[in-house]
């Protein structure tokens, strides 16, 4: 058995640990009242130790809807001498909610009686919102890239389907014309029916083309965005798994980059395409360095993605930004063409240069600017 005297809750060692850690730690008495409330707990909640000690946690810290659950866990922890994990919400002195993940441990005296509960927490509020944000962004991007592909498909379907519709309308027209001649100007209801049929075929064609236009010219809404933030978010997604491929990433975001009127999701799509291409290009490279940077110059904001990969194959150089140009077995060759149309729509420029040292650098430039040119959303 270990020496229980080591647990001296007010000794210098305990003090040092409790007051320096960034984790909120509280020690509770069997009745639920607070016996110790460390510095991190004070910072988190806004209550001082003096205010907290002696009060029961569920009387002021636990959010109303969770009071019963917390009391349950509390009793269970006392009953069984095992660490218990759970998460709950605390309300701070200024009425904010924080989400906390707890590990609880019962403390026993020499006789084996439970004297206290030591609860060590982690504030997961920010982590959670970042995670949620990330998965939102990921979802939107997925949707976006589907839309782009859908746009291509919709265009070719519209064309393909329009041909049989044209054939059908013409055939019906032929019959209607023949009937008209035979009826010698007399009223013939069949002709009207046929003409109605042609009208319906035209309607089908129009609907189809509207759909194509809708998907293809997927509404871009440009609002002022912090370019560095957009690049950071996009990099986070594109670089998932980059560690495993031993890629050394340097992010070099300039100061005072400021805002530009952008469609956030579209620009992130561009950054992701460029980073994924760079990662692909470095598969065979002994040295894998990826540099993502931003700069501001003459009213333009530049986003650059540089790699130490294979460089752009000579034969692709002139067609790089055209659709379906690829050197990859599993590539569609749409990444750069989509990126170019997005940057064009932002009145920007995208270019690529091979580097003497091997590898290449892609640069996108978009006009900087704050609150201007918002689209008319209908």
């Amino acid at each position, binding site marked *: 058995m270990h020496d229980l005297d080591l647990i001296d809750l007010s000794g210098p060692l305990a003090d040092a640990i409790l007051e320096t850690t960034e984790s909120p730690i509280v020690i509770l008495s069997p009745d639920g009242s607070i016996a110790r409330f460390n510095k991190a707990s004070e910072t988190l909640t806004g209550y001082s130790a003096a205010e907290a000690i002696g009060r029961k946690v569920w009387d002021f810290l636990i959010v109303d809807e969770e009071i019963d659950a917390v009391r349950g866990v509390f009793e269970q922890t006392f009953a069984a001498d095992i660490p218990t994990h759970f998460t709950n919400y605390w309300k701070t002195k200024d009425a904010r909610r924080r989400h906390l993940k707890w590990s609880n441990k019962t403390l026993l005296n020499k006789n084996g009686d439970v004297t206290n509960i030591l609860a060590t927490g982690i504030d997961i509020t920010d982590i959670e919102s970042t995670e949620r944000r990330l998965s939102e962004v990921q979802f939107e991007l997925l949707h976006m890239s589907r839309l782009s592909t859908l746009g291509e498909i919709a265009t070719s379907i*519209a*064309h393909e389907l*329009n*041909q*049989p*519709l*044209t*054939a*059908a*309308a*013409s*055939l019906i*027209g*032929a*019959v*209607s*014309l*023949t009937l008209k*001649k035979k009826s010698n100007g007399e009223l013939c209801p069949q002709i009207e029916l046929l*003409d109605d049929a*042609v009208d319906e*075929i*035209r309607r089908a*064609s*129009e609907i*189809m*083309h509207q759909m194509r*236009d809708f998907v293809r*010219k997927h509404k871009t809404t440009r609002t002022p965005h912090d370019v560095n933030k957009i690049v950071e978010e996009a990099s986070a997604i594109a670089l998932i798994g980059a560690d495993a491929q031993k890629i050394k990433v340097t992010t070099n975001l300039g100061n005072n980059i400021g805002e530009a009127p952008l469609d956030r999701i579209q620009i992130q799509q561009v950054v992701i395409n460029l980073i994924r291409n760079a990662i692909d290009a470095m598969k065979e490279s002994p040295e894998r360095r990826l540099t993502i940077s931003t700069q501001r110059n003459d009213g333009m904001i530049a986003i650059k993605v540089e790699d130490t990969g294979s460089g752009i194959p000579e034969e692709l150089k002139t067609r790089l930004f055209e659709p379906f140009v690829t050197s990859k077995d599993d590539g569609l060759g749409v990444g750069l063409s989509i990126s170019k149309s997005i940057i064009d729509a932002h009145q920007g420029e995208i270019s690529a240069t091979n580097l003497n040292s091997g590898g290449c650098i892609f640069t996108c430039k978009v006009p900087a600017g704050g609150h201007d040119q918002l*689209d*008319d959303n*209908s």
Partner: protein
Amino acid sequence: MTTHKSTVFLIDDDVAVQHGVTALLTAADHSVAVFNSAEDFLSKLTTLDTVNTAMLLDVCMPGIQGLELQEQLYNDGVEIPVIVMTGHGDVPMAVRAMQNGAVDFLEKPFTVEEVVTALDRAFGLSRPIVKLTRSASPELTENYESLSPRENEVLRGIVDGGTSKEIARTLDVSPRTIEVHRHNVMSKMNAKSIAELVRMAVALGVGD
């Protein structure tokens, strides 16, 4: 009655379209010669009688595009009036074809009236291929000058091939407003169809 029965050269790569349009034109008392592509047509051109003919040309085909065929015919002095067929809403292509000398354009799928009217016009022309340049009549010019600045912008937008929505976006007003302007433009210009409006615009040199 003409000595020659009028013949329409139909150039389209889709077999079903060839079949349907041939039936329609036959019912309208034209004889029809079908070609699968611009190349197909050019290779047989020397054997064809081009008197009293017109061409229905799909501008969206693989191989030599419709526009290039027009260019070649023009350079070779072959005077066949050309009516181009475009996909729905592909006005920019139509505008280019008409600048290239096409007499009209039809949006697929078309009605009997549209194709008959276009062909009647084509066959009635004394000089079928006149590259449409600025050849506006005084009346047309007068109509054009009666347009308000906004209506003028809308006309440009239409000729550039914009849908109401797109024009609305560039001009920063609602699509509904554009519909109203579009209607006013058509009536002030006395145009019965977009094709006619485009023809007028090209004659006026709008959008050059």
